[in-house]
Protein backbone atom coordinates (compact mmCIF):
# COMPACT_ATOMS: atom_id res chain seq x y z
CA UNK A 1 0.00 0.00 0.00
CA UNK A 2 1.28 3.47 -0.88
CA UNK A 3 1.03 6.23 1.71
CA UNK A 4 0.45 9.52 -0.08
CA UNK A 5 1.36 12.46 2.14
CA UNK A 6 -0.16 15.15 -0.09
CA UNK A 7 -3.92 15.29 0.51
CA UNK A 8 -4.49 16.72 -2.97
CA UNK A 9 -2.43 14.00 -4.67
CA UNK A 10 -4.45 11.37 -2.86
CA UNK A 11 -7.72 12.99 -3.94
CA UNK A 12 -6.43 13.21 -7.51
CA UNK A 13 -5.45 9.54 -7.72
CA UNK A 14 -8.66 8.31 -6.09
CA UNK A 15 -10.82 10.45 -8.42
CA UNK A 16 -8.83 9.28 -11.47
CA UNK A 17 -9.22 5.62 -10.49
CA UNK A 18 -12.94 6.13 -9.75
CA UNK A 19 -13.46 7.73 -13.16
CA UNK A 20 -11.47 4.95 -14.87
CA UNK A 21 -13.57 2.33 -13.05
CA UNK A 22 -16.80 3.98 -14.20
CA UNK A 23 -15.54 4.33 -17.78
CA UNK A 24 -14.27 0.77 -18.15
CA UNK A 25 -17.45 -0.55 -16.53
CA UNK A 26 -19.70 1.43 -18.88
CA UNK A 27 -17.79 0.99 -22.10
CA UNK A 28 -16.76 -2.68 -21.96
CA UNK A 29 -20.01 -4.27 -20.89
CA UNK A 30 -21.47 -7.57 -22.03
CA UNK A 31 -25.14 -8.01 -21.10
CA UNK A 32 -26.24 -11.09 -19.09
CA UNK A 33 -30.02 -11.22 -19.65
CA UNK A 34 -30.63 -14.10 -17.20
CA UNK A 35 -30.03 -11.73 -14.26
CA UNK A 36 -30.60 -8.39 -16.04
CA UNK A 37 -26.96 -7.63 -15.21
CA UNK A 38 -23.78 -7.40 -17.24
CA UNK A 39 -20.15 -8.49 -17.45
CA UNK A 40 -17.50 -5.76 -17.29
CA UNK A 41 -13.80 -5.18 -16.64
CA UNK A 42 -14.09 -2.42 -14.06
CA UNK A 43 -12.81 -4.75 -11.32
CA UNK A 44 -9.28 -4.27 -12.66
CA UNK A 45 -9.17 -0.74 -11.21
CA UNK A 46 -10.93 -1.72 -7.97
CA UNK A 47 -8.31 -4.40 -7.24
CA UNK A 48 -5.58 -1.94 -8.27
CA UNK A 49 -6.95 0.73 -5.90
CA UNK A 50 -7.12 -1.72 -2.99
CA UNK A 51 -3.59 -3.02 -3.57
CA UNK A 52 -2.03 0.34 -4.33
CA UNK A 53 -3.77 2.78 -2.00
CA UNK A 54 -5.37 0.65 0.71
CA UNK A 55 -8.85 -0.19 2.00
CA UNK A 56 -10.32 3.35 2.11
CA UNK A 57 -9.40 4.16 -1.49
CA UNK A 58 -10.39 0.64 -2.55
CA UNK A 59 -13.85 1.14 -1.05
CA UNK A 60 -14.36 4.60 -2.61
CA UNK A 61 -13.18 3.51 -6.07
CA UNK A 62 -15.22 0.28 -6.00
CA UNK A 63 -18.42 1.65 -4.52
CA UNK A 64 -18.67 4.99 -6.33
CA UNK A 65 -17.01 4.11 -9.67
CA UNK A 66 -19.19 1.05 -10.19
CA UNK A 67 -22.39 2.63 -8.81
CA UNK A 68 -22.00 5.57 -11.24
CA UNK A 69 -21.69 3.03 -14.06
CA UNK A 70 -24.81 1.16 -12.89
CA UNK A 71 -26.76 4.42 -12.92
CA UNK A 72 -26.48 4.22 -16.70
CA UNK A 73 -28.84 1.47 -17.83
CA UNK A 74 -28.93 -0.78 -14.75
CA UNK A 75 -30.06 1.47 -11.83
CA UNK A 76 -31.71 -1.38 -9.92
CA UNK A 77 -28.26 -2.84 -9.27
CA UNK A 78 -26.88 0.33 -7.62
CA UNK A 79 -27.45 -0.81 -3.98
CA UNK A 80 -25.94 -4.26 -4.61
CA UNK A 81 -23.02 -2.85 -6.56
CA UNK A 82 -22.26 -0.15 -4.00
CA UNK A 83 -21.95 -2.75 -1.24
CA UNK A 84 -20.37 -5.62 -3.20
CA UNK A 85 -17.80 -3.58 -5.16
CA UNK A 86 -17.04 -1.34 -2.21
CA UNK A 87 -16.38 -4.43 -0.10
CA UNK A 88 -14.24 -5.89 -2.90
CA UNK A 89 -11.90 -2.89 -2.84
CA UNK A 90 -11.94 -2.68 0.95
CA UNK A 91 -11.11 -6.36 1.58
CA UNK A 92 -8.36 -6.23 -1.06
CA UNK A 93 -6.79 -3.25 0.70
CA UNK A 94 -7.19 -4.76 4.17
CA UNK A 95 -5.49 -8.06 3.25
CA UNK A 96 -2.80 -6.44 1.09
CA UNK A 97 -1.84 -4.16 3.97
CA UNK A 98 1.64 -2.73 3.57
CA UNK A 99 2.84 -5.18 0.89
CA UNK A 100 5.99 -3.35 -0.18
CA UNK A 101 8.26 -6.18 0.98
CA UNK A 102 8.60 -7.50 -2.57
CA UNK A 103 6.71 -10.72 -1.93
CA UNK A 104 3.76 -11.30 -4.24
CA UNK A 105 1.99 -13.80 -1.97
CA UNK A 106 0.03 -11.30 0.08
CA UNK A 107 -1.14 -9.16 -2.88
CA UNK A 108 -2.22 -12.32 -4.74
CA UNK A 109 -4.22 -13.53 -1.72
CA UNK A 110 -5.70 -10.03 -1.34
CA UNK A 111 -6.73 -9.85 -5.01
CA UNK A 112 -8.18 -13.39 -4.87
CA UNK A 113 -10.18 -12.46 -1.77
CA UNK A 114 -11.44 -9.33 -3.53
CA UNK A 115 -12.47 -11.23 -6.67
CA UNK A 116 -14.11 -14.04 -4.68
CA UNK A 117 -15.99 -11.58 -2.48
CA UNK A 118 -17.41 -9.96 -5.64
CA UNK A 119 -18.63 -13.32 -7.03
CA UNK A 120 -20.05 -14.39 -3.65
CA UNK A 121 -21.58 -10.96 -3.01
CA UNK A 122 -23.45 -10.80 -6.30
CA UNK A 123 -24.64 -14.42 -5.85
CA UNK A 124 -25.97 -13.49 -2.40
CA UNK A 125 -27.80 -10.45 -3.76
CA UNK A 126 -29.12 -12.14 -6.92
CA UNK A 127 -30.14 -15.44 -5.30
CA UNK A 128 -31.52 -14.31 -1.96
CA UNK A 129 -31.64 -10.57 -1.21
CA UNK A 130 -33.19 -9.28 -4.47
CA UNK A 131 -35.85 -12.06 -4.69
CA UNK A 132 -36.69 -11.35 -1.02
CA UNK A 133 -36.90 -7.59 -1.66
CA UNK A 134 -38.77 -8.28 -4.91
CA UNK A 135 -41.66 -9.86 -2.99
CA UNK A 136 -42.26 -6.46 -1.35
CA UNK A 137 -40.85 -4.00 -3.94
CA UNK A 138 -41.57 -5.10 -7.56
CA UNK A 139 -38.57 -3.14 -8.90
CA UNK A 140 -36.19 -5.71 -7.36
CA UNK A 141 -38.04 -8.69 -8.79
CA UNK A 142 -35.53 -9.21 -11.61
CA UNK A 143 -33.65 -12.36 -10.65
CA UNK A 144 -33.97 -15.71 -8.85
CA UNK A 145 -31.60 -18.39 -7.43
CA UNK A 146 -31.49 -20.24 -10.80
CA UNK A 147 -30.50 -17.12 -12.72
CA UNK A 148 -27.97 -16.24 -10.00
CA UNK A 149 -26.40 -19.70 -10.44
CA UNK A 150 -26.12 -19.15 -14.21
CA UNK A 151 -24.46 -15.75 -13.59
CA UNK A 152 -21.77 -17.35 -11.45
CA UNK A 153 -19.73 -18.24 -14.55
CA UNK A 154 -19.58 -14.74 -16.11
CA UNK A 155 -19.04 -13.25 -12.64
CA UNK A 156 -16.16 -15.67 -12.03
CA UNK A 157 -14.60 -14.73 -15.41
CA UNK A 158 -15.05 -11.06 -14.48
CA UNK A 159 -13.44 -11.69 -11.09
CA UNK A 160 -10.50 -13.54 -12.65
CA UNK A 161 -9.90 -10.81 -15.22
CA UNK A 162 -10.03 -8.25 -12.40
CA UNK A 163 -7.54 -10.22 -10.30
CA UNK A 164 -5.07 -10.78 -13.16
CA UNK A 165 -5.44 -7.25 -14.57
CA UNK A 166 -5.35 -5.57 -11.17
CA UNK A 167 -2.24 -7.45 -10.06
CA UNK A 168 -0.48 -6.75 -13.38
CA UNK A 169 -1.28 -3.03 -13.14
CA UNK A 170 -0.27 -2.83 -9.49
CA UNK A 171 3.07 -4.48 -10.31
CA UNK A 172 3.58 -2.09 -13.24
CA UNK A 173 2.69 0.95 -11.11
CA UNK A 174 4.98 0.06 -8.22
CA UNK A 175 7.80 -0.97 -10.60
CA UNK A 176 7.65 2.33 -12.48
CA UNK A 177 8.12 4.38 -9.30
CA UNK A 178 10.98 2.07 -8.21
CA UNK A 179 12.67 2.34 -11.65
CA UNK A 180 12.69 6.12 -11.25
CA UNK A 181 14.29 5.66 -7.82
CA UNK A 182 11.73 7.90 -6.19
CA UNK A 183 9.13 7.28 -3.52
CA UNK A 184 5.52 6.63 -4.54
CA UNK A 185 4.57 9.92 -2.92
CA UNK A 186 7.03 11.85 -5.08
CA UNK A 187 5.91 9.84 -8.11
CA UNK A 188 2.29 10.83 -7.56
CA UNK A 189 2.87 14.44 -6.63
CA UNK A 190 5.40 15.00 -9.41
CA UNK A 191 7.92 16.58 -7.01
CA UNK A 192 11.04 14.82 -8.24
CA UNK A 193 14.06 15.85 -10.22
Amino acid sequence: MTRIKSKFAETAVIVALTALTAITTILVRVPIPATNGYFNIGDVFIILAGLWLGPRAGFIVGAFGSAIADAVGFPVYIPATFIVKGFEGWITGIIAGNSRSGSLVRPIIAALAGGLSMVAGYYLFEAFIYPMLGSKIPMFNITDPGAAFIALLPNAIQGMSGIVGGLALWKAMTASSQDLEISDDQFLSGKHG
Partner: protein
Amino acid sequence: MRAFEFPAFLKLQNLRPWWLKMAVLVLIGYPLFSNRPAAFIASAMGQCLPETLGALLVWPLITFFIWACCLPSLGTAKLLDYLAAAYAMAVTTTLSGAALRGLLPAIFLSDPVADNLRLMRVYFNILAVFPYSLTFVNSFSVSDLMARLTKTRGKFRGAGLHLALALRICQHVGEVIPKLLLVWREENPELLLPRCRDDWQGISPLARWPMWVVLSISQWIFACIILTFEPIPVMVNEIEQIDESGDSDDPDKV
Protein backbone atom coordinates in the same frame (compact mmCIF):
# COMPACT_ATOMS: atom_id res chain seq x y z
CA MET B 1 -13.20 26.38 -43.77
CA ARG B 2 -14.66 28.19 -40.75
CA ALA B 3 -16.48 25.96 -38.30
CA PHE B 4 -20.13 26.80 -37.69
CA GLU B 5 -20.56 28.59 -34.37
CA PHE B 6 -23.77 28.02 -32.42
CA PRO B 7 -25.42 30.99 -30.68
CA ALA B 8 -24.17 31.49 -27.12
CA PHE B 9 -27.64 31.12 -25.56
CA LEU B 10 -27.80 27.51 -26.82
CA LYS B 11 -24.59 26.53 -25.05
CA LEU B 12 -25.26 24.83 -21.73
CA GLN B 13 -22.00 26.08 -20.22
CA ASN B 14 -23.32 29.66 -20.42
CA LEU B 15 -26.38 28.91 -18.27
CA ARG B 16 -26.39 30.71 -14.91
CA PRO B 17 -26.74 30.16 -11.98
CA TRP B 18 -25.05 26.82 -11.56
CA TRP B 19 -28.07 25.05 -10.05
CA LEU B 20 -30.21 25.93 -13.09
CA LYS B 21 -27.49 24.50 -15.32
CA MET B 22 -27.42 21.34 -13.20
CA ALA B 23 -31.23 21.03 -13.34
CA VAL B 24 -31.31 21.43 -17.14
CA LEU B 25 -28.53 18.86 -17.58
CA VAL B 26 -30.31 16.35 -15.31
CA LEU B 27 -33.54 16.93 -17.23
CA ILE B 28 -31.81 16.28 -20.56
CA GLY B 29 -30.23 13.08 -19.24
CA TYR B 30 -33.42 11.82 -17.55
CA PRO B 31 -34.28 9.37 -20.40
CA LEU B 32 -30.88 7.72 -19.86
CA PHE B 33 -31.43 7.09 -16.16
CA SER B 34 -35.11 6.14 -16.18
CA ASN B 35 -37.18 3.82 -18.36
CA ARG B 36 -40.28 5.99 -18.03
CA PRO B 37 -39.64 8.36 -20.98
CA ALA B 38 -38.77 5.41 -23.24
CA ALA B 39 -41.88 3.50 -22.14
CA PHE B 40 -44.04 6.60 -22.69
CA ILE B 41 -42.66 7.23 -26.20
CA ALA B 42 -42.94 3.53 -27.10
CA SER B 43 -46.57 3.39 -25.97
CA ALA B 44 -47.36 6.61 -27.89
CA MET B 45 -45.75 5.20 -31.03
CA GLY B 46 -47.41 1.82 -30.45
CA GLN B 47 -50.76 3.46 -31.25
CA CYS B 48 -49.77 4.17 -34.84
CA LEU B 49 -46.89 1.69 -35.41
CA PRO B 50 -46.39 -2.06 -34.81
CA GLU B 51 -45.20 -2.74 -31.23
CA THR B 52 -41.71 -4.05 -32.16
CA LEU B 53 -41.09 -1.13 -34.53
CA GLY B 54 -42.04 1.31 -31.75
CA ALA B 55 -39.62 -0.40 -29.36
CA LEU B 56 -36.94 -0.30 -32.08
CA LEU B 57 -37.35 3.41 -32.78
CA VAL B 58 -37.53 4.73 -29.22
CA TRP B 59 -33.81 4.42 -28.42
CA PRO B 60 -32.51 6.02 -31.63
CA LEU B 61 -34.96 8.88 -30.99
CA ILE B 62 -33.67 9.39 -27.44
CA THR B 63 -30.08 9.21 -28.68
CA PHE B 64 -30.73 11.86 -31.36
CA PHE B 65 -32.38 14.07 -28.72
CA ILE B 66 -29.29 13.81 -26.49
CA TRP B 67 -26.96 14.55 -29.41
CA ALA B 68 -29.07 17.57 -30.40
CA CYS B 69 -28.83 18.94 -26.85
CA CYS B 70 -25.06 18.34 -26.67
CA LEU B 71 -24.19 19.67 -30.14
CA PRO B 72 -24.31 23.44 -29.42
CA SER B 73 -22.19 23.06 -26.28
CA LEU B 74 -19.58 20.72 -27.77
CA GLY B 75 -19.47 21.98 -31.35
CA THR B 76 -19.48 19.76 -34.44
CA ALA B 77 -15.81 18.71 -34.42
CA LYS B 78 -15.75 17.71 -30.77
CA LEU B 79 -19.07 15.88 -30.94
CA LEU B 80 -17.80 13.87 -33.93
CA ASP B 81 -14.61 13.04 -32.00
CA TYR B 82 -16.65 11.77 -29.07
CA LEU B 83 -19.01 9.85 -31.36
CA ALA B 84 -16.09 8.09 -33.06
CA ALA B 85 -14.97 6.75 -29.67
CA ALA B 86 -18.55 5.99 -28.63
CA TYR B 87 -19.22 4.03 -31.85
CA ALA B 88 -16.07 1.96 -31.35
CA MET B 89 -17.13 1.09 -27.79
CA ALA B 90 -20.77 0.45 -28.70
CA VAL B 91 -19.89 -1.86 -31.60
CA THR B 92 -17.35 -3.76 -29.45
CA THR B 93 -19.89 -4.21 -26.65
CA THR B 94 -22.79 -5.37 -28.81
CA LEU B 95 -20.58 -7.67 -30.91
CA SER B 96 -19.20 -9.31 -27.77
CA GLY B 97 -22.77 -9.67 -26.45
CA ALA B 98 -23.83 -11.33 -29.70
CA ALA B 99 -20.76 -13.60 -29.69
CA LEU B 100 -21.45 -14.62 -26.08
CA ARG B 101 -25.02 -15.49 -27.03
CA GLY B 102 -23.64 -18.03 -29.51
CA LEU B 103 -21.06 -19.43 -27.08
CA LEU B 104 -23.20 -19.55 -23.89
CA PRO B 105 -26.86 -19.72 -24.92
CA ALA B 106 -27.92 -20.74 -21.37
CA ILE B 107 -27.44 -17.25 -19.99
CA PHE B 108 -29.65 -15.63 -22.62
CA LEU B 109 -33.41 -15.44 -22.72
CA SER B 110 -35.35 -17.83 -24.89
CA ASP B 111 -36.92 -14.88 -26.72
CA PRO B 112 -34.46 -13.75 -29.43
CA VAL B 113 -36.45 -10.56 -30.17
CA ALA B 114 -36.15 -9.44 -26.52
CA ASP B 115 -32.42 -10.27 -26.62
CA ASN B 116 -31.89 -8.26 -29.80
CA LEU B 117 -33.82 -5.30 -28.39
CA ARG B 118 -31.74 -5.44 -25.23
CA LEU B 119 -28.46 -5.42 -27.19
CA MET B 120 -29.74 -2.60 -29.36
CA ARG B 121 -30.68 -0.61 -26.28
CA VAL B 122 -27.16 -1.06 -24.86
CA TYR B 123 -25.73 0.06 -28.22
CA PHE B 124 -27.71 3.30 -28.33
CA ASN B 125 -27.24 3.82 -24.60
CA ILE B 126 -23.46 4.00 -25.04
CA LEU B 127 -23.81 6.29 -28.07
CA ALA B 128 -25.92 8.69 -26.00
CA VAL B 129 -24.22 8.43 -22.61
CA PHE B 130 -20.71 9.14 -23.85
CA PRO B 131 -21.28 12.65 -25.32
CA TYR B 132 -23.85 13.45 -22.62
CA SER B 133 -21.54 12.70 -19.69
CA LEU B 134 -18.71 14.72 -21.29
CA THR B 135 -21.07 17.63 -21.94
CA PHE B 136 -22.20 17.43 -18.32
CA VAL B 137 -18.68 17.47 -16.88
CA ASN B 138 -17.40 20.15 -19.27
CA SER B 139 -20.34 22.47 -18.61
CA PHE B 140 -18.82 23.50 -15.30
CA SER B 141 -15.74 25.69 -15.43
CA VAL B 142 -12.84 24.69 -13.18
CA SER B 143 -11.01 27.99 -13.75
CA ASP B 144 -14.09 29.97 -12.59
CA LEU B 145 -14.30 27.81 -9.48
CA MET B 146 -10.58 28.22 -8.79
CA ALA B 147 -10.71 31.98 -9.34
CA ARG B 148 -13.54 32.15 -6.82
CA LEU B 149 -11.62 29.95 -4.37
CA THR B 150 -8.54 32.17 -4.47
CA LYS B 151 -10.70 34.92 -2.94
CA THR B 152 -12.42 32.62 -0.44
CA ARG B 153 -11.38 31.97 3.15
CA GLY B 154 -12.80 29.60 5.74
CA LYS B 155 -13.65 25.93 6.05
CA PHE B 156 -15.22 25.59 2.59
CA ARG B 157 -12.01 26.58 0.84
CA GLY B 158 -10.30 23.21 1.36
CA ALA B 159 -13.38 21.26 0.27
CA GLY B 160 -13.74 23.58 -2.73
CA LEU B 161 -10.14 22.96 -3.79
CA HIS B 162 -10.68 19.20 -3.58
CA LEU B 163 -13.87 19.60 -5.63
CA ALA B 164 -12.09 21.72 -8.25
CA LEU B 165 -9.33 19.12 -8.54
CA ALA B 166 -11.87 16.30 -8.86
CA LEU B 167 -13.79 18.18 -11.55
CA ARG B 168 -10.62 18.95 -13.49
CA ILE B 169 -9.57 15.29 -13.40
CA CYS B 170 -13.02 14.14 -14.53
CA GLN B 171 -12.86 16.60 -17.46
CA HIS B 172 -9.39 15.34 -18.33
CA VAL B 173 -10.44 11.66 -18.17
CA GLY B 174 -13.25 12.49 -20.60
CA GLU B 175 -10.73 13.93 -23.04
CA VAL B 176 -8.53 10.82 -22.78
CA ILE B 177 -11.12 8.41 -24.20
CA PRO B 178 -11.22 9.74 -27.82
CA LYS B 179 -7.39 9.67 -27.85
CA LEU B 180 -7.50 5.92 -27.19
CA LEU B 181 -8.68 5.38 -30.77
CA LEU B 182 -5.37 6.81 -32.03
CA VAL B 183 -3.45 4.54 -29.65
CA TRP B 184 -5.51 1.58 -30.90
CA ARG B 185 -4.73 2.40 -34.54
CA GLU B 186 -1.01 2.79 -33.84
CA GLU B 187 -0.82 -0.53 -32.01
CA ASN B 188 -3.23 -2.41 -34.27
CA PRO B 189 -2.84 -1.13 -37.83
CA GLU B 190 -4.61 -4.28 -39.06
CA LEU B 191 -7.61 -3.32 -36.87
CA LEU B 192 -10.11 -6.16 -37.31
CA LEU B 193 -7.77 -8.54 -39.15
CA PRO B 194 -5.62 -10.29 -36.53
CA ARG B 195 -5.36 -13.35 -38.79
CA CYS B 196 -3.16 -11.28 -41.12
CA ARG B 197 -0.51 -10.44 -38.53
CA ASP B 198 2.94 -11.52 -39.71
CA ASP B 199 4.28 -12.06 -36.19
CA TRP B 200 1.56 -14.63 -35.33
CA GLN B 201 2.40 -17.17 -38.07
CA GLY B 202 2.96 -20.10 -35.67
CA ILE B 203 -0.30 -19.55 -33.76
CA SER B 204 -3.53 -21.37 -34.56
CA PRO B 205 -6.07 -19.11 -36.30
CA LEU B 206 -8.62 -20.04 -33.59
CA ALA B 207 -6.29 -18.79 -30.86
CA ARG B 208 -5.58 -15.49 -32.65
CA TRP B 209 -8.95 -13.89 -31.96
CA PRO B 210 -8.94 -14.35 -28.15
CA MET B 211 -5.26 -13.35 -28.09
CA TRP B 212 -6.03 -10.24 -30.07
CA VAL B 213 -8.94 -9.37 -27.76
CA VAL B 214 -6.85 -9.81 -24.57
CA LEU B 215 -3.89 -7.88 -26.00
CA SER B 216 -6.11 -5.08 -27.27
CA ILE B 217 -7.91 -4.68 -23.93
CA SER B 218 -4.61 -4.67 -22.01
CA GLN B 219 -3.11 -2.10 -24.40
CA TRP B 220 -6.25 -0.02 -24.06
CA ILE B 221 -6.11 -0.11 -20.25
CA PHE B 222 -2.39 0.77 -20.16
CA ALA B 223 -2.90 3.66 -22.56
CA CYS B 224 -5.87 4.81 -20.50
CA ILE B 225 -3.78 4.85 -17.31
CA ILE B 226 -0.76 6.57 -18.86
CA LEU B 227 -2.84 9.30 -20.51
CA THR B 228 -4.96 9.77 -17.38
CA PHE B 229 -2.13 9.99 -14.86
CA GLU B 230 0.29 12.02 -17.02
CA PRO B 231 -0.97 15.53 -16.15
CA ILE B 232 -2.05 14.78 -12.57
CA PRO B 233 1.19 16.09 -10.95
CA VAL B 234 0.77 19.44 -12.74
CA MET B 235 -2.87 19.70 -11.65
CA VAL B 236 -1.99 18.80 -8.05
CA ASN B 237 0.85 21.36 -7.98
CA GLU B 238 -1.47 24.07 -9.26
CA ILE B 239 -4.04 23.35 -6.55
CA GLU B 240 -1.33 23.14 -3.85
CA GLN B 241 0.00 26.55 -4.90
CA ILE B 242 -3.48 28.07 -4.53
CA ASP B 243 -3.82 26.33 -1.17
CA GLU B 244 -0.41 27.61 0.00
CA SER B 245 -1.07 31.15 -1.24
CA GLY B 246 -4.30 31.14 0.80
CA ASP B 247 -2.43 29.98 3.90
CA SER B 248 0.22 32.71 3.53
CA ASP B 249 -2.51 35.37 3.09
CA ASP B 250 -4.15 34.30 6.32
CA PRO B 251 -3.69 37.23 8.79
CA ASP B 252 -3.92 34.89 11.79
CA LYS B 253 -1.08 32.73 10.58
CA VAL B 254 2.34 33.44 12.14
